[in-house]
């Protein structure tokens, strides 16, 4: 079965985590990537992070004793999911182009 569509929040969280980042960093990065359009709320991000860790799509890095903030990074499985989603989104855009712009 083809992979189900990712939510916008999950797509952007996975994209952000190519570099290790903590929660607040993810919120800022997603905001910048989407030019201020996607504003992740703390509770939503918390739920998404927990689910992604459970699925093995992101990993929590060993805690740094100097910083109390937990950092996360994308895993190999997460990258594979992201690539599949990228292809799906590309198909949507390509079909949109063909039918709406007649290209």
């Amino acid at each position: 079965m083809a992979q189900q569509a990712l939510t916008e929040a999950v797509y952007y969280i996975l994209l952000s985590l190519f570099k290790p980042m903590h929660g607040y960093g993810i919120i800022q990065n997603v905001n910048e990537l989407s030019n201020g359009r996607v504003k992740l709320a703390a509770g939503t991000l918390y739920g998404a992070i927990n689910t992604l860790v459970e699925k093995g799509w992101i990993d929590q890095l060993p805690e740094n004793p100097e910083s109390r903030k937990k950092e996360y990074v994308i895993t190999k499985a997460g990258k594979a999911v992201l690539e599949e989603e990228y292809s799906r989104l590309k198909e949507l855009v390509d079909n949109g182009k063909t039918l709406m712009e007649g290209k």
Partner: protein
Amino acid sequence: MRKKVHKLFWIWQLEKEQAWVNDMAEHGYALVRAGRFTFEFDDSEPGIYIYKEIFLKGSSTSSKNIEYFKFLEEMGITEVCAIDYPNTCWVYLRALKEDYPNGIELYSDVESKITYESVMMWYLLFVVIVCGLCSALNYYMAFTPNNGVRWLNLITASGVTILMVIALIDFIKRVIRINKLKKERKIHE
């Protein structure tokens, strides 16, 4: 200086209570402790804090909720105090208003909003059932044959029935809100 205020809010008055706590903060009284009928405030710079009240599953000291509070703290949102109820807790969060000028919004996706509203909905249903049983028992005792009408039971039953109806109205409002969100989810994230 600490200021103590006694005030009663019912479970269905979450939004009203939050508005009142925020209004106090606007006037320079920052909430530091809350009980079921008592609120304690410390003097603060007027309008510096913004408060948010939430309902969570489990006790406020459960490891799951403590983890959540730690995470929120990274976002500049602090747990001020909490009141524990059976298997749920009512939590008072606060942040600097300059960080959250439009208020603390914890959920930005439809799914999380549905989950949150569902917790509230089930808790209200529990209140409705308890009130229903309590009033039925009191009505039964008030009109037990051969004993005449017992007025104390009748007054209690009537009072609890009113509470049950108010909780039921709020329960129905939440069900409607959840259904609207579920419809939205079919076409939007």
